[in-house]
């Protein structure tokens, strides 16, 4: 039987960084501090932060959904098209039939159905979700361009409506959509860590054989998962539309790589079976802040992408190293060498 070391009481700093999300939050803070130094003009004011909070909720909400998907060992790349479709449905209904809340419902329903279909394709045709949802990205994306005939729709007059104040209004200068995103984060955290659905996802992602043997209805849970992902993507699409008051048929495509990056920067394992919701929240913030921060710091055009890559790598490494230096083989090596 094993025995805990009866050494000195645990280092309080180390203990603090064992709390979910503290290491990545710390990395985020460091980044903000850095930008305060390099771009004081933008980052010492409050406006930049308000701008983030207005623009980050859609990708953050998608990333939260994707976290659950990744926990279950699956992938969903179709979300940009779901975002576009929901945005189209919302705009079209608002513009042509003056619907507001009904348009919202219809948009969410559309996303839900699309997610459900994704789930069917994955479970009933047995196509691995990465390729299945890549195909659906094309399929749904093509379909929305067809139904919208490639046109954009603008609904600037929605700004006066109640629904706009609820989803894209400002409390003082504070964008309400950020509250929605936080709400979704809390919900997803509860689902993953406290709900039986989340537990099923954890075991499905951990080991399919085990999940089967302990009595989890794998197909049903997966279909539920993709359906939820569709719903969340649609919600993100609606929020996006409210903020920009426009539908583009390319809407959402720009999120493809950044949302994926946010989930993994947040520390969720690609191998499934574990997920960090708080990590995803900060991962989304980091992804959103990097480019703006670099740009505001005056990094010359061509170098921006280079530094984005670099900051990604440094963030992920720091996140792991703060949690446990032994997670970074290089540090582990150095430490064990130093000990000798």
């Amino acid at each position, binding site marked *: 039987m094993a025995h805990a070391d009866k050494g000195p009481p645990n280092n309080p700093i180390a203990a603090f960084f064992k709390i979910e999300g503290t290491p990545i939050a710390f990395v985020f803070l460091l980044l903000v501090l850095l930008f305060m130094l390099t771009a004081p003009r933008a980052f010492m004011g409050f406006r930049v932060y308000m701008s983030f909070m207005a623009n980050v909720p859609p990708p953050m909400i998608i990333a939260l959904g994707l976290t659950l998907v990744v926990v279950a060992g699956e992938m969903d790349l179709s979300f940009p098209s779901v975002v576009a479709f929901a945005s189209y449905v919302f705009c079209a209904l608002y513009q042509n039939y003056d619907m507001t809340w009904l348009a919202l419902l219809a948009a969410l329903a559309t996303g839900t159905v699309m997610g459900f279909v994704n789930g069917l394709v994955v479970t009933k045709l047995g196509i691995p979700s990465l390729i299945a949802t890549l195909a659906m990205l094309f399929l749904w994306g093509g379909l929305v361009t067809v139904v919208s005939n490639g046109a954009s729709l603008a609904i600037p007059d929605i700004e006066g409506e109640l629904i706009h104040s609820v989803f894209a209004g400002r409390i003082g200068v504070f964008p309400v959509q950020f509250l929605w995103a936080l709400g979704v984060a809390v919900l997803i955290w509860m689902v993953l860590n*406290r*709900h039986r659905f989340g537990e099923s996802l954890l*075991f499905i992602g951990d*080991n399919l*054989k*085990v999940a*089967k043997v302990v*009595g989890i209805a794998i197909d049903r849970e997966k279909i539920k998962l993709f359906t939820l992902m569709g719903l969340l993507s649609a919600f993100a699409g609606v929020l996006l539309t409210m903020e920009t008051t426009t539908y583009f048929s390319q809407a959402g495509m720009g999120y493809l790589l950044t949302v994926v990056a946010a989930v993994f920067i947040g520390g969720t394992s690609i191998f499934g079976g574990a997920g960090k919701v708080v990590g995803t929240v900060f991962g989304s913030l980091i992804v959103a802040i990097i480019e703006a921060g670099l740009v505001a710091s005056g990094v010359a055009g061509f170098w921006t992408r280079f530094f984005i890559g670099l900051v990604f790598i440094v963030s992920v490494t720091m996140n792991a190293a703060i949690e446990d230096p032994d997670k970074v083989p290089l540090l582990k090596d150095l430490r064990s060498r130093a000990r000798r």
Partner: protein
Amino acid sequence: MTSTPIVRLEHVGKKYGKVVSLKDVTLEIGANEIVGLIGDNGAGKSTLIKVLTGVEPPTSGTLYVRGLKIDASSYTVKEAHKLRIETVYQDSSLGEKQPLWRNFFVGRPITNRFGFIDVKAEKKVAEHIMRSTIGFRGVGIDVDTPVSRLSGGERQGVAIGRAMHFDSDLIVLDEPTVALALKEVQKVLDFIRSIKSGGRSCIYIEHNIHHVHEVCDRLVVLDRGEIALDAPTSSMTYLELTNFLMSLHGRRPAAAAH
């Protein structure tokens, strides 16, 4: 065995592609019976219990639980749990990255009506089972330890503890003593005896004939997917049983060559 048997297999067959793992198996498990299932490696024992507990559908034959015919296509582990059949599988059935407490309750968590898990209650029960039933005593291990950090025997202990906790009518144990130390093996045997005295039933798969002969009421021998023997333990001494098993081996053409 005058009452309706808990489960009954009729002419059950199971093929994996062209591999035939079970061939025309007919078998009953009665109420309050401890049945020892023995046989060579690859005889089909694990396959039999996978069919019985809804992990794999049979390719032919029918399955009855308490006299009711079961629809193979909708029979799942969850169904089996509902029918009060509980199993310890041979391959690990633990989520390695998950903490101990989740592994105890997964599939049947303690939830409120919205499906949210009562983590505190689950941890408390898990803690109790861990300390009392299977005897984990290390300070390094608690209910939050992920399974990947446990030793082989500790894992087996978790799986058995789970089976002990969920009160069932039929408990299926596929090589439960594997990897367990002396004292823990005794605990498992005691547990099987308690199943008997509690009026419940058990299928016990084990290569250690000694143990089987000691605790079982009835012996079933599988040989290359078929039932070669089905007799009360009392009809055979330990020696007769080993001789019978050896004679089975002898029948094999290839095996005879060595």
